């Protein structure tokens, strides 16, 4: 593990947060910035990256996403095969596989989820969610 990898992941961006970041939303960018200034990392699950890339067709936005993912403070997070049972639970709650991986990553890293789709994560207080304004 490199020293960079020892820095904790304290914020996980879901698909809505990634898309908001690419759209230039200050409500997505500033939370990422403050995590970096606090010498921590932000994470995006690999499934979320794939979902975002499937939706983002603008070459500039795709390049911006690649730059975001290459940042020292960005961790692209895995979902492990042995966690299939937990994954299927969160898939049931959120109705989406990418949100399920985000929920699992947040719980694994004891991090908060940055989202515009907070209602999809279940009832209020169900998960550590930070809601972004529209």
């Amino acid at each position: 593990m490199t020293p960079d990898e020892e820095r904790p992941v304290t914020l996980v961006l879901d698909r809505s947060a990634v898309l908001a970041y690419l759209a230039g939303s200050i409500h997505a960018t500033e939370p990422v910035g403050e995590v970096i200034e606090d010498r921590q990392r932000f994470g995006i699950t690999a499934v979320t990256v794939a979902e975002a890339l499937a939706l983002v067709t603008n070459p500039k936005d795709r390049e911006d996403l690649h730059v975001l993912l290459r940042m020292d403070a960005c961790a692209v997070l895995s979902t492990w095969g042995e966690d299939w049972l937990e994954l299927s639970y969160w898939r049931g709650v959120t109705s989406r596989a990418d949100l399920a991986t985000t929920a699992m990553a947040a719980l694994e890293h004891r991090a908060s989820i940055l989202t515009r789709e907070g209602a999809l994560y279940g009832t209020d207080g169900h998960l550590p969610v930070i809601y972004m304004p529209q």
Partner: protein
Amino acid sequence: MTSPVRKLSISVPQDVAATLAEQPNASAYITQAVRDRRAVDQFRAEQARRGVQLTEEGMAEARARRRRVEAEWPAERYDAVRERVREHMQDDLVGGDRPASAA
């Protein structure tokens, strides 16, 4: 795997030299400080390139929001949710019912 290293001779002010003298591993201390600063510079340069204007006030508000969630979510709460989900899904496997809500 250890990455290759380069030996440098640098000059620092007295106060920095005193801090480094207190460290068990001054090289590791400097390396982490440089990486931390690089991550911030990298992020700010990217936002400048994209034309996104960051404000100290906005960053502080974002930090306060995250800290509020962190205060509501101690480590035990994360672990408890995971444990309840696992138990719920194990019961579901045995019982054959659809999951409702475990967290």
